[in-house]
């Protein structure tokens, strides 16, 4: 028969306003230390104002604090029923003992004690016994103890000895807060002003208020157009109830005539005084409830309310709201940088803007920087020749005055001739001037974009690039035929161009020949400086190879360098492939790399014993690419023609 506590009736689901603040405070105090503060606690309020909610809230909170606490909730009717059953069964003593073992007894609706002398005596005994044992009793009623007809004076005195507290009708702001909270709980959204319009109707009973909200939700679910405030007012029953003319405070409703003239008078006086004396408090209170409802910390406004008079409350509210809006902006930016920051409490405290700024700065700094240029490639390592001089001059001009002279700089050249080297070298030089430099290839850019789309984090991904001080994209020709990548590049291009930030692109083919490249992007690329990087001549190759050999072997070997540079190679990469092959062979044979060895390796004058070693047990086409050569190298050699059958199988694979 004892009702279990309704899980929804907790303190955190109870909307606190001026009308019930005291009662909630007392209830919480009792829940925190049952039997010690207000014992008994007697809460009275007209129906529908949350007595049962508060009562069960005490039970929940007390159990949360001390799970071993024995809590019993029952209505007076149940209390009486159990009493009668126990007496009838001759178990009166057991009945009494049952309640004496309870640490926290919650009795609802005790107004029904009227004229029940024996139950009053029983409750009196129980109250005394519980009090004596430091056990808590909380009672609720729809009227004050004095107003419960024919209530034993001793009971009234017992109740008065604890705390008797009333909950009055919610004021306008609390009604707004309740409606917003409940709408949010039910995942209902309404147009601007709708809930406020309903709250403006003097519905002083929370149940009725929630009924009105249900009507709004039902109507909205079958209606195509969103509810207007006027419709809402009508639906909520406001057609026959006058809205309180925008008055933010309202008196309690008139009880039946003659019943509580003084209470009625008091309510009206309260409303008038509040309106007249405390108009500013009402404004601050409205702002407080609004921003508190949106999850912001409002201690600043609360502090304001603590003050006696505020010289310019409007200005104080404006300043507070300006800070809140700044927080909202910062939160949006932070969320773009790192979605997990959106919920950070630091963006909810207008009292600590500095903290929010710091957090945002951390987000800005801490976000994965865009791919940076490889530190291995530097401008000073570039070997200048008559062929590449123009490209190098352009690169130097760009690094000397980024964004001003050639923007964008587009480097065109075949694969393996050093475009990427030059691009990264420019990137490193630009990075040396400060700010993050984005340097990556078009396929990397596309793959990052796809990843961002998958993670639903495109804005954050974009933000990384937008914050870069320069944007360097390798192999832009590989972006041809991509739609979204080109869209993003286009937008990024415009932003960088508008803000005078440097862009450098490389392409393996002339821009005009790239069919899949959108004209809007191509024309923009062509609008900067397009320079060609020619195939390195033998002189350049020799200098580069000599440098590489020196780096690898620790000592220069000019003969080897000259030989290797003399080998046909249409790219620097191919020439370096030759070096790689010779060095690998030397290492394999544990001999030093020499020009002779190189000749042997590259010209096929292989010693007889090395040939079988190159054969692999796997059937293949017999085409062996140089170890680090690359697909375009002429050094692909046919060591041995395979069997005809092998070749067919190979081709069909």
């Amino acid at each position, binding site marked *: 028969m004892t009702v279990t506590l309704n899980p929804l009736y907790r303190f955190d689901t109870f909307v606190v306003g001026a009308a019930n603040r005291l009662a909630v405070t007392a209830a919480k105090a009792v829940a925190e230390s049952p039997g010690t503060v207000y014992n008994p606690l007697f809460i009275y309020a007209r129906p529908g104002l949350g007595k049962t909610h508060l009562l069960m809230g005490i039970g929940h909170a007390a159990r949360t604090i001390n799970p071993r606490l024995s809590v019993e909730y029952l209505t007076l009717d149940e209390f009486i029923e159990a009493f009668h059953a126990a007496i009838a069964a001759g178990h009166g003593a057991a009945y009494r003992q049952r309640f004496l073992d309870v640490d926290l007894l919650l009795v609802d609706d005790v107004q029904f004690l009227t004229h029940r002398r024996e139950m009053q005596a029983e409750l009196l005994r129980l109250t005394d016994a519980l009090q004596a044992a430091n056990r808590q009793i909380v009672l609720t009623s729809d009227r004050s103890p*004095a107003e419960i007809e024919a209530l034993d004076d001793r009971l009234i005195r017992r109740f008065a000895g604890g705390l008797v507290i009333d909950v009055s009708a919610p004021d306008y702001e609390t009604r707004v807060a309740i409606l917003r909270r409940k709408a949010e709980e039910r995942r209902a959204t309404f147009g601007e002003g709708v809930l406020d319009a309903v709250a403006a109707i003097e519905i002083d009973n929370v149940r009725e208020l929630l009924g009105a909200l249900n009507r709004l939700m039902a109507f909205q679910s079958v209606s195509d157009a969103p509810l207007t405030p006027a419709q809402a007012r009508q639906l909520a029953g406001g057609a026959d109830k006058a809205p309180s003319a925008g008055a933010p405070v309202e008196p309690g409703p008139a009880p039946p005539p003659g019943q509580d003239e003084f209470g*009625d*008078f*008091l309510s009206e006086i309260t409303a*008038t*005084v509040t309106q*007249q004396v*405390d*108009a500013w408090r009402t404004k601050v209170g409205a702002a407080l409830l609004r921003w508190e409802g949106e999850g912001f910390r409002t201690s600043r406004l609360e502090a304001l309310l603590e003050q*006696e008079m505020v010289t310019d409350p409007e200005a104080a509210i404006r300043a507070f709201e300006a800070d809140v809006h700044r927080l909202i902006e910062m939160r949006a930016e932070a969320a773009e940088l790192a979605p997990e920051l959106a919920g950070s409490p630091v963006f909810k405290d207008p009292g600590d803007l500095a903290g929010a700024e710091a957090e945002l700065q951390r987000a800005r700094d801490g976000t994965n920087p865009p791919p940076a240029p490889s530190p291995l490639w530097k401008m000073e390592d570039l070997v200048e020749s008559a062929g590449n001089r123009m490209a190098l001059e352009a690169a130097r001009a760009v690094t000397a005055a980024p964004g001003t002279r050639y923007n964008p700089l587009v480097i065109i050249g075949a694969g393996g001739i050093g475009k990427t080297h030059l691009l990264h070298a420019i990137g490193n030089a630009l990075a040396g001037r400060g700010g993050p430099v984005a340097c990556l290839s078009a396929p990397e850019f596309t793959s990052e974009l796809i990843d961002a789309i998958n993670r639903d984090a495109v804005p954050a991904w974009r933000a990384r690039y937008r914050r870069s001080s320069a944007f360097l994209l390798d192999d832009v020709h590989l972006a041809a035929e991509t739609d979204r990548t080109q869209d993003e590049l286009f937008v990024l291009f415009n932003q960088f161009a508008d803000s005078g930030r440097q862009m450098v692109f490389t392409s393996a083919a002339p821009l005009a020949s790239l069919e899949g490249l959108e004209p809007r992007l191509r024309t923009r690329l062509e609008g900067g400086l397009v320079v060609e990087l020619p195939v390195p001549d033998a002189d350049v190759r020799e200098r580069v190879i000599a440098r590489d050999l020196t780096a690898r072997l620790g000592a220069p070997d000019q003969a080897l360098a000259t030989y290797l540079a003399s080998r046909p190679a249409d790219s620097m990469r191919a020439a370096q492939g030759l070096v790689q092959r010779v060095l690998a062979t030397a290492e394999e044979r544990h001999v030093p790399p020499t020009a002779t060895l190189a000749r042997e390796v590259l010209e096929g004058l292989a010693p007889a014993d090395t040939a079988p070693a190159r054969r692999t047990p796997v059937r293949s086409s017999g085409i062996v690419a140089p170890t680090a050569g690359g697909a375009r190298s002429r050094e692909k050699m046919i060591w041995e023609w395979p069997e005809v059958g092998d070749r067919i199988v190979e081709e069909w694979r």
Partner: protein
Amino acid sequence: MSLVNFTAREITCKIVYYGPGRSGKTTNLQYIYGRVPESRRGRMVSLATQTDRTLFFDFLPLELGNISGFSTKFQLYTVPGQSYYNATRKLVLQGADGVVFVADSQARRFDDNLESLQNLQDNLLAQGVDIRQLPVVFQYNKQDLPHDLILSQEEMDDALNFREVPSFAADALQGNGVFETLRGVSEIVLKRLAAGSPAA
């Protein structure tokens, strides 16, 4: 006397029930006294003769509690209606924030009402208060009496209420119109708070 004391966070409203003798001023206060919860009312002080006529004055303090951070008190006074107690009336009237003029609706008391109203004006003027600047409401009491004995609310308004201030028909013995009157005067008094008018 100051109506609002921001430093002490107090609002004190002094309301004086004025009118001819036996018009029902004390009855008003008694009715209010009976409706106020014990915790809110102070002891009603009433100095009366053996024949139940107010000799000195009645005083009923009402604690309205904390309203918007202000401890709010109402002090209700009556004056002795009899013409020979004018010194007391003057004293009670000092610092009044509002006046309820309780008129006797009986036709035969018509002149007494006029005389008392004139007396109120004179006494206020003597204190440098223009009755037009002070919150005043009229209560036409004893409207429960047979119609041939009394004047209607309209007739009473015509006779007394030249400035068309709020007026209330009442039967103070039964309580009809008592709280309406109190509310009426309080509203006007309190609405002057915003204007920062010293009211006294």
